Every structure is written in structure tokens, then in C-alpha cells.
């Protein structure tokens, strides 16, 4: 244990709030647009930030099934909230993306593939749940026989500043899914916000060569009072933040034998029960950081001489999703909820070697009918209707 701390000690650094500003400045100088959390319309959402003043200072949240409210914290924390409504996926895997455009030229036709606009983005404050969601999207979209080439281009242009979750929400269950609350890999830098008698500061550790490079640069340029080498106390403090967060999960999900459980109960009466409450509104699939299903929209001008194909997010909760001539394969809401839950928690494992759920709780918080995935699965496990 002591050895571990000493190793981290060598690599880590402490940033005070002005040091965090210098990190943002440095990332911007190096060509990354910094996308971080900020408050808008009563929610913590992602936007491009230039200043630490745009971060949600002293803002917390209260989350429960079908409910999300911001609250005032009694401290100055900049990251004192849980997962907001937006996953990071819309930045790397936009909800709408041009695939190609076509044109009629006399009797001939021309097809022009779309170009990918892969902006260099630094994602600032990526929680461990969302970090795992990114890794799942990498597996689904980038590590396949045929890949989503636009996603791959964007992903390669992305710098990730991860964050130890310090105040999980009422719908969080990353501990159950083994995906948090402390970032383990897949980041360039990882921050842990420390509040206490030693002052408001951030432990930052590198997770990649370019992350180390940024830190070295920051160290050489930062003024006095901005940064200092991390000490053992800082590492211990960061461990406490993660350990405390792990103790404050609002929900839990028993994953033991989950795939086989769901495969064994496709006709369980609970599916009909949840369908009686589910509005099939698609909110859960839109806020889910791993849902990846898409459709293609055809957009044409009135003369029919120009046409475009757009890749758009789709949802297995629509009847159109499974449409074959004559009707939909999954006509009932019951079959659509079963498809979503079974895919997310069971068949995803067969397809991609991992669960499709990272325990971020968004599908619970943002369900207008307050349906709780963890409760539905527990009901199926208990055999109750």
C-alpha cells in the first residue's frame, strides 16, 4: 500500500483553482476546445468552457427516479454533482450526421461521401461511469470488422480529463456494475477534487504519455500558488473521496448470473407490468451513454435531383425500429422494454464481452414514468410479479 502511494506520489501534482485555470488555458493553447460541465436551464450540461468560473461552483444535485433538481451546496466544490442528463456520446457520436449526398446529373447520378469534421475536443470532468461508456462505444463502434469511421476520427482527436466522482446521485449504481466511482484507465489526466483544511485543490495524475506531457508543460509554466507536487496526504485524501463515494450509491443492481437470468425469463409477467407504466418515449435510450442504435434518414429536395443520407440516433422503443413489410416485429411495449433491458444487461455481453450498462442512473432519473431498471431486474430475480 505504501509503495503504491509513493509511486503515485512521483507522478501526481496538486492544482489550486488558478492552476486548474492554467490547465484549461494550456489545453486550449494546444488546440483542444475544452468541453466541461456548466449550469444551464436548471441542469448541469456540457458546453465549451474557457474559465473555471463557468464550472458549476457550489452546485449539487438531487436525483431520484423521474426527478432531477439542482441544489446549493454548502461548499465551493466545482464538481459536486453527479451525472447530468447528457452523456458525452453526442460529442463523439452526434445524434445526426451526414453520410453522403447525391445528385442527379442528366441520366447519371453522383454520390459524394461526407467529410468528417473531427474537432479536437478535451472532455473535462469525465466520470468513471462515462469513461467506461466511452470504452464500450470504442468496442461497439471502433473495434469491429466494419467501423464507424467518423467516430474513430473524432475519438482520436479527443483528450480526456477524467474525474473521481465525489458526490454520486440517488440513481447511481456504478459500484454494482464495476465501473466506478474512481477512474481506472482510459484517460489522459484524472482529477480528484479535494476540499478541506488544506484548501480547495485538485490532485491530478497522468494516464497517458500526452497527459504527462501536458502536466510537465503545466509545471514548467505555472506561477507560484497555482501548482505544487502532490504529497502523500493528497493521495490519501483522494482515496478517501473515492471510498466515500463508493459508500453513497443511491441504487444497486445484483449482476450475479444476470445474463442467464434474463435469457431464462423472456415471458416473465414483470415485462407486462413494466409495459403498463412505460410510455415508450425513448428518453432512456437517448440519455444512455452506451445506446448506439441508429437509422438513416433520407432528405431530398422537391425536384428529386438532390438527396442526402443522414445517420440519426434511433431507439428500440419505437415501433418503426423493428418494422418489416406488414408490421413491426416488436409491436407491444412489453417486447420493446424486454428488448432494451435484455440487450443492455444480457445480450450485450455475448456481443461485446461486457455489459452495456455502466450504472450512471440516467435512464432512471430521466424516465418520465419513474421506471427504475434496477427495481425491474430485482423483481424478475425475486420471481415476483
Amino acid at each position, binding site marked *: 500500500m505504501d509503495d503504491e502511494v509513493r509511486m503515485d506520489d512521483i507522478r501526481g501534482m496538486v492544482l489550486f483553482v488558478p492552476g486548474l485555470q492554467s490547465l484549461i488555458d494550456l489545453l486550449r493553447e494546444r*488546440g*483542444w*476546445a475544452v*468541453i466541461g460541465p456548466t449550469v444551464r436551464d436548471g441542469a448541469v450540461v456540457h458546453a*465549451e468552457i474557457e474559465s473555471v468560473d463557468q464550472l458549476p461552483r457550489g452546485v449539487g444535485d438531487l436525483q431520484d427516479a423521474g426527478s432531477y433538481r439542482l441544489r446549493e451546496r454548502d461548499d465551493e466544490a466545482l464538481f459536486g454533482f453527479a451525472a447530468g442528463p447528457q452523456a458525452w456520446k453526442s460529442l463523439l457520436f452526434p445524434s445526426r450526421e451526414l*453520410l*453522403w449526398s*447525391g445528385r*442527379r446529373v442528366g*441520366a447519371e*447520378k453522383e*454520390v459524394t*461521401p*461526407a*467529410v*468528417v*469534421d*473531427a*474537432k*479536437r*475536443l478535451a472532455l473535462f470532468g469525465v466520470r468513471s461511469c462515462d469513461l467506461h461508456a466511452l470504452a464500450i462505444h470504442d468496442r*461497439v*463502434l471502433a473495434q*469491429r*470488422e*466494419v467501423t*464507424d*469511421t*467518423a467516430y*474513430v*476520427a473524432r475519438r482520436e482527436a479527443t483528450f480526456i480529463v477524467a474525474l473521481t466522482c465525489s458526490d454520486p446521485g440517488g440513481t447511481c449504481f456504478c459500484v454494482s456494475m464495476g465501473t466506478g466511482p474512481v477512474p481506472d484507465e482510459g484517460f489522459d489526466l484524472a482529477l480528484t477534487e479535494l476540499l478541506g483544511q488544506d484548501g480547495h485543490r485538485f490532485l491530478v495524475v497522468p494516464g497517458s504519455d500526452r497527459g504527462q506531457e501536458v502536466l510537465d508543460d503545466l509545471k514548467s509554466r505555472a506561477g507560484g500558488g497555482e501548482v505544487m507536487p502532490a504529497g502523500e496526504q493528497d493521495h490519501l485524501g483522494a482515496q478517501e473521496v473515492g471510498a466515500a463515494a463508493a459508500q453513497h450509491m443511491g441504487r444497486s443492481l445484483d449482476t450475479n448470473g444476470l445474463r442467464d437470468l434474463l*435469457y431464462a425469463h*423472456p415471458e416473465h409477467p414483470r415485462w407486462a407490468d413494466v409495459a403498463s407504466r412505460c410510455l415508450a418515449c425513448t428518453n432512456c435510450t437517448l440519455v444512455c451513454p452506451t445506446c*448506439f*442504435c*441508429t*437509422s*438513416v434518414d*433520407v432528405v*431530398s429536395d422537391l425536384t*428529386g435531383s438532390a*438527396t442526402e*443520407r443522414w*445517420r440519426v440516433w434511433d431507439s*428500440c422503443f419505437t415501433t418503426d*425500429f*423493428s418494422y*418489416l*413489410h*406488414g408490421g413491426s*416485429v*416488436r*409491436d407491444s411495449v*412489453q*417486447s420493446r422494454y424486454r*428488448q432494451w433491458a435484455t*440487450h443492455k444487461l*444480457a445480450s450485450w455481453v*455475448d*456481443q461485446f464481452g461486457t455489459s452495456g450498462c455502466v450504472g450512471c442512473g440516467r435512464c432512471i432519473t430521466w424516465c418520465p414514468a419513474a421506471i427504475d431498471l434496477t427495481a425491474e431486474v430485482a423483481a424478475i430475480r425475486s420471481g415476483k410479479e
Partner: protein
Amino acid sequence: MPRLAEPTAVQPVESAMVPRLFRLVDRRQDTADTFTIMLEPNDGVPLAFIPGQFTMLSAFGVGEVPISVSGDAHVAGPLQHTVRDVGAVTHALARTAVGDVMGVRGPYGTGWDVADGHSRDVVFVGGGIGLAPLRPAVLEVLAHREDFGRVVLMYGARSPEELLFVDELKQWEDQGMEVLVTVDYGRESWQGRVGLVTKLIPRAGFDPRSTLALICGPEVMMRHTALALVGRGVRSSRIRVSLERNMRCGVGLCGHCQYRELFVCVDGPVLPYAQVTGLLGLREV
């Protein structure tokens, strides 16, 4: 909307979603609502496929549909698809005139793997338009007729007017295939069989212990056919079905065609019956 930095890395990417252009060189009306289109690639590079695979056919300004290739995989010539006019895209394809250009992506998915039937009897069971995806496999077997034992086609359609490839069925008989045809409803002039295709299975001439069975048709027909074949003694691992799902990308990325853990467009459409026996018995999977 978050304000984003100016683009710094605009680049063209190779995308599997961009179609190749093909020209319609010939067209045949098979039945009242079913037609076969013959396509030649604009770039001159033929589209190689294995029997059982499908492509995504694209009508400009309308959309894309997955259609199995119905032509001969081993003879040079236009790319053939047999299409039933049932929706917006297939209707646009139906109205495409000779000389017009359409988009093609693919080929995608798994094939029938008829070589697995070498030295065995081969049984084809087709329902309605389901004979079209089987046709490349039939042609491959008949081209190497001596490599196989008895070869049987059981083909059912709703009515005699909806039977596909009627002239060809006679040729196939002449080439050493037993062809059994049945319809659900026939007028008085119909001299052939009436009834479900599954009823043909008990008396067709094949050895169930050494048979490869390939089935394509509506899901309920495939399920009952497979059950009847198993009932006669065919091993479920030697029965293959071709599943149909809503396929939008063809490469396993869009998620539409999922059949529990399977992406039908990549893992299928041709799948061993043994792999999907349980799922075929479930509704709305």
C-alpha cells in the same frame, strides 16, 4: 448548443455506408408484385457474393432496403435481385427503368454453404419470395449435381399466380432435382397440390440421416418446416434458415436487426436452426 472550436481536422473517411453505383440493364416481371432486376456496375468491377448473401439496394431520394441476391454466384453476368413491391423503396425500385442508376452496398451476411451438403441429400424448402434467396444455392448445387445425393425442392406459395421462376422449375427437374410445389389456394384450373409446404416433408425422397436442409420463407413457415424436418429425423445442426429483420446498415452497427444476441445482418441471415431453435418459438424477439 455548445459553442465549439473551429474545425481543425476535417478529413474524408472511407465509410461502409456509401453505395456503389449500378445501372439497371434488364428487368423481368415475375408475378403481379414481384420483379427481377439485373444490374451492371458503373465502375466495371463485378460484385462477388456467396449464395445466401444480401445487398442494400438504394433508390435515390427514397431509401435503402436489404434484398438477397437471387442470381448465379459462379457465372459472370449482371447482378440479380428478385424484389417484391411492398414498401416505398421497393416501389421506387419497381419503377426504375432500364438505363437508370441505383445504389448498391454489400454483399453482406452469411451464406448457405452448400458445400457442406457434399455426398449428402440436399433439401430446399421455400415459401413465397423465399425461393429467391435460395436460388443461388439451387444453381450452385445443380452446377455440381454429381457431388450431391438426392436433391429436393419443396416450394409453397399462396396461389399459383404467385409462384416464382415457374419455367425454371421445369429445367431444375430436368437437371436432376425433385420439385414439389404446393399452394394455399388454387382456382379450379389448378391441377397441382394444395396445402402447407410442411405437408410435403413426410413423403419427399431424401434420407433424413444424411441431409442438408435449407429453408427460406416466412418465420412461422420456417419454424414449422424445421420442426417437421427434425420430426423426420434430420439433425437440427444440419438445418439452416434465413432470417429476415429490419436491416439498415448491413454491417452490425445500426442495431436494428438484433435477434437477442445476434446481429442478423452479420451473424445471419443464414443461421443454423440449432442456434435459433429457442428464439424461433418466442414472440416479438
